[in-house]
């Protein structure tokens, strides 16, 4: 076994263990521990990417996933301040067993297909001068801004949509100004339910 292989199995095993720990007790019992296991798993994956010569991706994995996405997750978990009572998962149910079997089945199918199709696959030689820049920032960046310019621009729209959507959904009080008409005769207003804050300076729910 070469050093490369040993590293691969170590990192891969780590990623699998950390992801599994996210779901299983004792770590998986509370969301915050799950999140931490997931961060660990992302670090292992970043190591795997580096091992597979995806240098830029490896850095992105740490910056974006471990640095931004998971911070968001932990932030929300802390914000919700889930108490111990809510952290109890209920017990094993037939539905869950069925779901687990389904996931296993999907994995089994994938594994068989992969074994059958990748036997004897030969990789390219990255020491070839043609691959000198493989996976480097300039190479990936060049491709991103030339061949993949359109998807790149589209992803910026996607991120904008996500930002707008998140603001719309999560804003605490979008003060709603009701239509200034009297209710029809015989109609009772439902209990006012909209904005608990009520003293939002912005009368209208723009993204401030």
């Amino acid at each position, binding site marked *: 076994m070469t050093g490369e292989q040993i590293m691969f199995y170590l990192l891969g095993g780590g990623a699998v263990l950390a992801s599994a720990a996210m779901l299983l007790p004792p770590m998986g019992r509370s969301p915050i521990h799950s999140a931490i296991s997931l961060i660990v798993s992302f670090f292992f994956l970043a190591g795997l990417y580096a091992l597979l010569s995806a240098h830029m991706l490896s850095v992105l994995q740490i910056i974006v996933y471990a640095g931004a996405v998971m911070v968001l997750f932990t932030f929300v978990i802390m914000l919700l301040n889930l108490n111990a009572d809510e952290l109890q998962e209920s017990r094993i149910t037939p539905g869950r067993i069925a779901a687990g079997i389904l996931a296993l089945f999907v994995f089994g199918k*994938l594994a068989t297909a992969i074994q059958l199709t990748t036997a004897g696959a030969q990789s390219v030689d990255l020491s070839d001068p043609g691959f000198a820049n493989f996976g480097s920032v300039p190479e990936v960046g060049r491709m991103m801004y030339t061949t993949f310019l*359109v*998807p790149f621009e*589209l992803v910026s729209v996607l991120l904008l949509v996500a930002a707008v959507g998140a603001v719309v959904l999560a804003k605490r009080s979008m003060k709603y100004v009701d239509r200034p008409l009297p209710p029809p005769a015989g109609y009772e207003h439902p209990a006012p339910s909209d904005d608990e804050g009520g003293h939002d300076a912005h009368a209208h729910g723009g993204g401030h």
Partner: protein
Amino acid sequence: MLHDLALITPQLILLIAALFTLVADPFLPIDASRKFWGLFGAGMSALAVVACAVLWKYGPFEMHTPAFSYHLSASGHALFFTALVSMCAMITHMSSPEYLVEQKSHYGEYYALLHFATFGMAVMVSAESLLTLFIGLEIMSMSIYVLVAFKRTSQASVEAGLKYFVMGSVASAFLLYGIAFLFGLSGGTSFIEIQRALLAPKPGQDLWLGLAVVLTGGAFLFKVAAVPLHMWTPDVYEGAPTPITGFMSSAVKASAFGSFLKFLYAGLSGPAMASLHLPLGQVLGLFAVLTMTVGNILALTQRSIKRMLAYSAVAHAGYLLLGTIATIDDPTLGAPFLAPTGAVPFYLVGYALASLAGFAALSSLGKNGEELTTEGHLAGLSKRHPIAALALTVSVLSLAGVPPTLGFFGKLQILRDVLAVENGKYLPHVIILVLNSVVSAYYYLKIPVAMYMRPDSKANRQYVREPSLTWAMALPALALLALGIMPGRAMSWASRSEQAIRAGTESANVAHSYAVVKGGGSAKPVAAVALEKPVAAAPVR
């Protein structure tokens, strides 16, 4: 570059509309915002339709040339579906303002998100690569998730949004995994690259391809609400704001089917696919039969009209899946195609118009944060709001496939095409479809019966009658009747849209011999070939 930008004018119009709404909304006084954004949105969507029409008629460009390094194109297929979803957006914009004000959820972001969703759909149906298709799909889905949950104080709405979101992101992950396998086969994600890779088979390719088709197909089946993956439909359709339900059942379904057709046609054709022995037609047929039967049976038992129409949407997904077979029957996949009659796009026009009219009419029922959309609430509607009653009646007649409406011709076209496949190989499926239509007539006709025959009740007197909302239900209903009387034009548009993919696919196969490599730099030979083929194949413009 400008040349290329002109090809995506409709998309650009939608994007500009979205950005303008987002930026300008905080500066508008509330009353003006309530009046203005619906009209503005409808106007911009209509402008996008016009842009599609201009490109369709005068497109000086090679109609099948992928622009932007094989990421987008303005093929007839893309234009047809972009126009269709923009038209759906137009009606939705018109039906939204009053509903939102009554439900106390009128915020400007709604219109921006609606534009974004339409933009995402337009990108999705014009995509020439799986990556662009996926990103378009995500833009659409993200906007729709938020729009479903837009009534933030309504538990049903927010939970529906969450449910749709969780299931949708799992579907996205499956789609991505499938795309990853197709990438592993071909080294690219554009349909042309995938096709080219399929022309030069690799060992073990069959299994890869099968896997990729199953994974991606599953995601598409989720989006169109086909049966094992339809569980989200009733809850989401019921919880969402009614205009959004109409938008989902028309535009989301249309764009999902549009890109699915394109993916099957343009991406997965070729000798390799034909030799795959994946009984794609039979698998789709099984799903189609299951979907229509389960959808119709469950629809029979519903009291809430929104829920009933949700199950009817599931059933219609089944009819459409059956229509898909007609265009991509398995042994001929890759080998000579059947004559593209455009059954699916044509059916989608009728279905989208009917859904829009129906849900616009339902949007007018209910006031002050209440929705009055059970069967009992419809009693005597013909006296209170005759236009809504009439629009809803036309809508359900079209959904049921009753002759003078467009829905009848859509179903007829699907039946005819499916029967034409290999001398009635799918005859049992067709019989099941007919039986299903008969069953569905029962629950559809309950609605007009309630509206016209049952006495009005005092409790039901809450409804909205505003000009824009009235037009929003009247226009699609009128279109259903007008196109039902003269279906020829719409039929020729639809068949041309399918011909466009076919021509693009053939030109890609020819282009193979030119040994075009990846990237935009050497796209010329393909363009040259693409120019000749489709012009020969194109019908009268």
